[in-house]
């Protein structure tokens, strides 16, 4: 009896709703059309702020660090100078003139009987008060900075925005056109309606294929920042920052390109490769030459082109191996070479030549001539491991320890150094 009742109830329900139709409700149609035609705009607004803020942050970093780099260098120079002029008996010295050089040679002859070691002893051993003189020679070679020739980040960002806008507009217009055609096709004639449905289905299938194609070319834009250091003993930790974009070949293999900015200051390890002036060569040949220090400063744009291979793929995280080549664009590169020499004579205020032992310092600043050596293509080999964590909505956070090996001489001073550090990177997915 119970089973019979249930069977009858089921049949009743089936029969009741077999041909059931609800009356047309325009409000529901409005809802549906609104939901179908307008959702993409929401997605558009979801990632644009990230893109714009990313580009703005990158530009801000460049604008902030660029002038500060110069100021810092000037400050260091000022501090060095102030240490030198703390002595009250500091006097301005000019470059040794020709006649003074002759006098100096004569004096050296006269003093030939003196102990040679005494001549190179620090000035504090002398009975006379110390005089430390410092002289900065004019830059021997002047160059136009590489900045004017490098591509503007703002311009690159603007082009990217324009291309994304065009893509969105084309997709929306195509979708609106298809649906518009469908609305017109709503007629009672079943055959015509069927033809429309078939045609529409074909179009949507085609669009689906193209969407799949697009989705396979998913692009991600990222910001990275992280500490780095070079293998050079004279350089400590610096901060690098930049933007990177990632193009997927497939689920595991990706192309990683970008640009990062960092400022370096190091002690050249190959002094023979440094640019030298004739004046400095003649100074260093003299017997009064004590020694020299050199320093290489430059700001660099590192443009890596890497391949990322995902070795471990989990739902929320992944582990990557990254390798590729880096090209370097150098901005504001210069070397400072400071020579110290013994001086035995000085000119008093009355103009008389007086014997006074002191140490003179000459600094030679050199820059690349005419923008030469401003770029090294593929000069560093990148090796890195990256751990990526999916936060939400296509936002990824990565930690990438890396090491860059030199493949040849770099900078206009022809130095070789490797760079190591950790990048903290945030990627934002573009597109659907």
């Amino acid at each position: 009896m119970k089973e019979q009742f249930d069977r009858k109830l089921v049949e009743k329900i089936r029969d009741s709703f077999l041909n059931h139709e609800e009356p047309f409700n325009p409000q529901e149609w409005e809802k549906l059309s609104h939901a179908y035609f307008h959702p993409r705009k929401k997605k558009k607004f979801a990632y644009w702020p990230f893109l714009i803020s990313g580009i703005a942050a990158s530009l801000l970093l460049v604008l902030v660090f660029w002038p500060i780099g110069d100021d810092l260098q000037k400050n260091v120079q000022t501090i060095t100078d102030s240490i030198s002029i703390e002595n009250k008996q500091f006097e301005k010295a000019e470059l040794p003139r020709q006649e003074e050089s002759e006098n100096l040679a004569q004096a050296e002859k006269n003093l030939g009987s003196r102990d040679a070691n005494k001549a190179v002893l620090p000035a504090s051993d002398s009975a006379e008060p110390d005089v430390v003189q410092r002289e900065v020679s004019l830059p021997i070679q002047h160059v136009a900075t590489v900045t004017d020739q490098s591509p503007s980040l703002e311009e690159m960002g603007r082009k990217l925005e324009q291309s994304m806008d065009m893509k969105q507009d084309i997709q929306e217009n195509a979708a609106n056109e298809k649906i518009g055609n469908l609305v017109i096709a709503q007629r009672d004639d079943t055959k015509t309606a069927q033809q429309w449905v078939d045609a529409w289905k074909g179009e949507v299938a085609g669009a689906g294929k193209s969407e799949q194609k697009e989705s396979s070319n998913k692009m991600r834009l990222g910001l990275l920042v992280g500490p780095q250091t070079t293998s050079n003993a004279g350089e400590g930790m610096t901060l690098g920052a930049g933007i990177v974009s990632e193009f997927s070949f497939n689920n595991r293999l990706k192309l990683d390109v970008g640009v990062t900015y960092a400022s370096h200051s190091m002690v050249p390890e190959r002094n023979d490769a440094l640019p030298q002036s004739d004046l400095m060569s003649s100074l260093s040949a003299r017997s009064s030459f004590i020694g020299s220090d050199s320093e290489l400063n430059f700001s660099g744009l590192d443009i890596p082109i890497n391949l990322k291979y995902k070795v471990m793929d989990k739902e929320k995280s992944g582990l990557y191996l990254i390798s590729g080549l880096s090209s370097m664009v150098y901005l504001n590169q210069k070397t400072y070479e400071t020579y110290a020499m013994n001086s035995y004579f000085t000119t008093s205020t009355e103009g008389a030549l007086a014997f006074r032992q002191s140490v003179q310092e000459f600094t030679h600043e050199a820059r690349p001539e005419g923008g030469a050596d401003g770029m090294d293509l593929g000069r560093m080999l990148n090796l890195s491991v990256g751990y990526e964590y999916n936060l939400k909505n296509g936002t990824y956070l990565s930690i990438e320890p890396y090491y860059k090996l030199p493949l040849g001489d770099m900078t206009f001073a022809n130095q070789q150094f490797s760079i190591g550090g950790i990048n903290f990177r945030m990627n934002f997915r573009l597109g659907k």
Partner: protein
Amino acid sequence: MSIALRYSNSREEACEIVNDSFMKVFDKLGQYAEENAFKGWFRRILINTSIDYYRKNVKYYADMEIEKAEHKICDPSVVDELSKEDILDLLRELPEAMRIIFNMYEIEGYSHQEISDSLGIPPSTCRTYLARAKQKLRDKITALNRIRDEGAVR
């Protein structure tokens, strides 16, 4: 719409399910295979959307009290007097899980295994819920019939 009405708690909810189903149809039309009936494909989408709707709204899973089975035997003829509105009201008075299982098993013809896969519950629970749903429907129809009879006598 009739499918969504049977699975939903109200007409508004049914409209939302239908709208969502149409969205899915438009988006996935490329995946539709021509050798299959469009009606069957669309029906499946509607049912899946109804289940998704149920899943979205279920925040807590709790066992329901086991009711004592009534042994009162119903008269099958009372079913004939039910209107569409009565049936919808009866179905909507069922707890959501029971309503879905009843619809899927009895009306759509899914197996217990398929239902348990869809809802993420064991097949034994599915059978229990179905039995309870039937029992509740029987009780409610009997009660409805009794009210009508009393009204007719007065």
